[in-house]
């Protein structure tokens, strides 16, 4: 870290973290020469200054030259007794938790660099986070786990400054902080590493790292050599070899993530949030990422690690926070927990009751997918759906479920395999052919794929049935109106006038409009992708009852859902996808939330082995 760094960012919101972080980092020349390396490497010691002033009797002991005079007092209650512990264990940089966990209930322990307390965030009627809390300590890797839709992503976006919480507080180094936009988050020392980073592809690695903060030489020209040197130093700290001079295009996703992490380090980020970083990585790359995380921890940074792969959580993290349905469920050291404990905490509801009584035995096969393969997306997917049954496609987001549905309906092409509907093999890539064969498709993204938001309710309901509503080529207005009114009533859509724009409806009623659009075609096969995502409880029950009734009337229903209670409540059979393949199949009687989650996260195979 050179002098160019000093004027680089330094937005005052980050002062505490930045001042604390720089001296603590091994690359900083002054402390390195003043103190033996192990001391300055001791993460908790280096970052102790952000502790409330009164609680830092330890700081002067080994960091006299490092303490920031400007460290502001924090509102938290001073706790003097425990904080000296961690700075005094310089030889255990990797186990800050060993001291921290003892007093997890207090504000002390390893310094808390960031905490979100009781935050909530709603989007319209949807309460994405109801009561979320996270506490991150210097030098720890902290896991955030939960089912799809538990609110993890919203928490990440709050930390990224993308969303402002409706209520609750964010404390950075004990200071209440508001993040206005992503720049605010960077200023506060928070960096987010996304699953697939977005680098400038035609710029060099070093230029990407120092974008907007390039070291300059005389005449305000960019000092390329200095930039390369600094980038090299950053990679050395991370223990990774990447040539700073090469252009970013063509870097593997793993390398791109490392570049982002290096950029975060150069910005003095003390909190590094990794949102499912391993999802797209190979085993070797995951191992390297874990080394990088260890290096970050040794550096005194806090890492928030989000992953669906629980074995990774156990491997790399010290503590875990579990969220469920937008609420904080549990924060605990991982030592002593099992994957079973975590899955139970993530799922943790009572078994839902069957929504309706027995449907009759399923009829003839309506939809068959045979060895369907799309390279890199899904592989060798075969299943059939019979008339009068609901088959659920469960699995984690990104497992390839929606992609299979899109391929069946002809939105996307596929490389191999066949789809047969109503006895006929479907042409690839033709929604029209799928519709002619009797398939209806309620897509995942209601606003973007399901509806034309500027059009009226009536026009949206009629959009897939225009051919039947015309006479001599002209759409008969009266036929369109009665068609739309008929289906709006059948699905009990709550609306003002049929000519109102569909954007005025609530999410649940919009979803009913999408359903009405397809039911109006009298499909024999209905594919529904996340049919109740983001809609309120009452309408959700309506949709569940409707799907059950449709199956009872003999429609073959293929349902994709990330909500396990919904899957268990509605489906006759459950297919679980994992990483593009069918991983397991359960009958309704065999299935439980635990078994589905286990199959979706790969625990099942692990157990069987």
């Amino acid at each position, binding site marked *: 870290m050179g002098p160019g760094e000093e004027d680089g960012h330094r937005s005052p*919101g980050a002062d505490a973290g930045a001042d604390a972080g720089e001296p603590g980092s091994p690359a900083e020349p002054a402390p390195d020469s003043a103190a033996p390396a192990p001391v300055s490497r001791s993460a908790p010691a280096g970052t102790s200054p952000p502790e409330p002033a009164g609680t830092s009797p330890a700081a002067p002991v080994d960091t006299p030259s490092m303490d920031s005079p400007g460290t502001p007092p924090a509102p938290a209650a001073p706790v003097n007794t425990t904080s000296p512990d961690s700075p005094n264990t310089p030889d255990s940089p990797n186990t800050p938790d060993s001291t921290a966990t003892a007093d997890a209930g207090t504000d002390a322990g390893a310094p808390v660099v960031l905490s979100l307390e009781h935050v909530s965030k709603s989007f319209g009627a949807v309460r994405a986070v109801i009561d979320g809390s996270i506490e991150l300590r210097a030098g720890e890797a902290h896991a955030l786990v939960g089912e799809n839709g538990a609110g993890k992503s919203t928490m990440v976006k709050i930390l990224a400054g993308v969303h402002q919480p409706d209520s609750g507080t964010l404390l950075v180094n004990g200071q209440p902080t508001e993040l206005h936009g992503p720049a605010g988050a960077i200023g506060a020392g928070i960096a987010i590493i996304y699953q697939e980073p977005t680098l400038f592809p035609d710029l060099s690695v070093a230029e990407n790292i120092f974008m907007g903060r390039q070291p300059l030489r005389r005449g305000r020209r960019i000092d390329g050599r200095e930039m390369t040197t600094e980038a090299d130093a950053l990679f050395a700290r991370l223990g990774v070899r990447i040539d700073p001079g090469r252009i970013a295009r063509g870097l593997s996703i793993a390398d791109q993530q490392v570049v982002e992490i290096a950029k975060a380090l150069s910005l003095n980020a003390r909190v590094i949030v990794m949102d499912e970083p391993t999802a797209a990585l190979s085993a070797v790359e995951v191992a390297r990422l874990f080394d990088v995380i260890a290096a970050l921890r040794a550096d005194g940074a806090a890492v928030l690690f989000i992953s669906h792969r629980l074995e990774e959580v156990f491997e790399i993290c010290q503590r875990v926070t579990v969220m469920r349905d937008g609420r904080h469920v549990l924060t605990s050291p991982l030592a002593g927990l099992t994957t079973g404990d975590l899955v139970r905490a993530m799922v943790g509801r009572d078994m839902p009751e069957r929504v309706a009584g027995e449907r009759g035995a399923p009829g003839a096969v309506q939809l068959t997918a045979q060895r369907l393969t799309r390279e890199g997306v899904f592989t060798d997917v075969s299943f059939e759906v019979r008339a009068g049954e609901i088959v659920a496609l469960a699995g984690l987001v990104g497992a390839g479920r929606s992609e299979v549905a899109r391929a069946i309906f002809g939105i996307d092409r596929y490389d191999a395999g066949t789809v047969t509907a109503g006895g006929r093999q479907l042409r690839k890539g033709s929604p029209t052919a799928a519709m002619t064969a009797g398939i209806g*498709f309620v897509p995942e993204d209601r606003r973007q794929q399901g509806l*034309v938001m*500027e059009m009226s309710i009536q026009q949206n309901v009629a959009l897939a049935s225009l051919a039947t509503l015309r006479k001599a080529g*002209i*759409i008969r207005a009266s036929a369109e109106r009665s068609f739309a009114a008929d289906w709006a009533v059948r699905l009990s859509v709550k609306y003002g006038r049929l000519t109102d724009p569909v954007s005025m409806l609530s999410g649940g009623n919009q979803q009913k409009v999408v359903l009405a659009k397809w039911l109006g075609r009298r499909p024999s096969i209905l594919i529904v992708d996340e049919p109740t995502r983001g809609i309120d409880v009452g309408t959700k029950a309506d949709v569940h009852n409707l799907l059950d009734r449709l199956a009872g009337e003999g429609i073959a229903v293929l349902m994709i859902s990330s909500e396990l209670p919904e899957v268990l409540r509605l489906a006759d059979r459950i297919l679980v996808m994992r990483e593009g393949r069918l991983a397991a199949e359960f009958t309704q009687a065999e299935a439980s939330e635990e078994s589905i989650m286990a199959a979706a996260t790969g625990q099942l195979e692990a157990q069987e082995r």
Partner: protein
Amino acid sequence: MRWETGLVVVVIAIAIMGSSLSPQFLTANNFFNLGLNNGEIAIMALPMALIIISGEIDLSVESTLGMSSAVLGVLWADHWPMLAIFVVVAVVGALAGAINGLLVTRVGLPSLAVTIGTLALYRGIALILLGPRTVANFPTIYTNVGIVAIPHTDLPYSIGIFIVLAVIFAIVLHATPFGRSIYAMGDNAEAAMFAGLRVKRIKTTLFIVSGVASALAGVLFTFRLNTAVQDNGTGLSLDVVAIVLLAGVSIFGGKGSIGGVFLAVLAFAGLQNALLLTNFNQEATGLVTGGLLLVSVFVPNAAMFVRSIRRAVTRMTRRMPSEPALSMPRKDT
């Protein structure tokens, strides 16, 4: 308030302004000239409206017009029979549109770039066909189309054709599944595809229609001036786009009506004519086109623009109550 209502007000205002500026404005003779000068633009505006509603744009219309004019001139000079020439010109127009359409829908290129490319390309073909030649010896029976009115009316033939086409386009756009699909894909192409609408096929069709209409405009243009030269119609694309945007068609797609196009043609022609009658600098009529274009795009977004400014100001004043809102350097926060 509907955009079309506003246009009616504008048209009336222009009529009042024009007649107060010059006693000749509200005369049959002036209307005839006014129609004559704008007939081809008006015809090309109809398919342009559909294309822009569908979320694309066709800037090559003026060159398709020029290329058709050149084909007409060359073949006439070669003593082809006129009816055969009409067939060839129609095919040329359809091909020009099909190339645009296929490049946009099948290759997936943005229509703005594609049609700027073919704008130059088709003009180049016209230049190769005609060179510096001027073909001017067309028979009177055809050139009269650009001089005399439709019997028993004061309307030039081109405006008559425009009115008939406008009715057909209005029905297609507002009352058929084809037209409904155009609105749907302009508002959200992805949702249209998920509803099984044949987005690519429909867009390709629209570009072909635009090509044929431009070819028709090319024929009318050539006969009106009794000249086929390689630069016929240069600069008309902008006028066409200006009319369509003035008509209330959203440049982002999904909104607009043929009624609006009809009113916009009246307003556009009336305004240019009024300025000419008042001896406004003839060279500066481009000011009118450009100004109209900008105003048409700005007005629908004006409310949003004002709101965003107000929001920015309140945000700044809230953050820095002690300092003047607008001159604040961002040194804090």
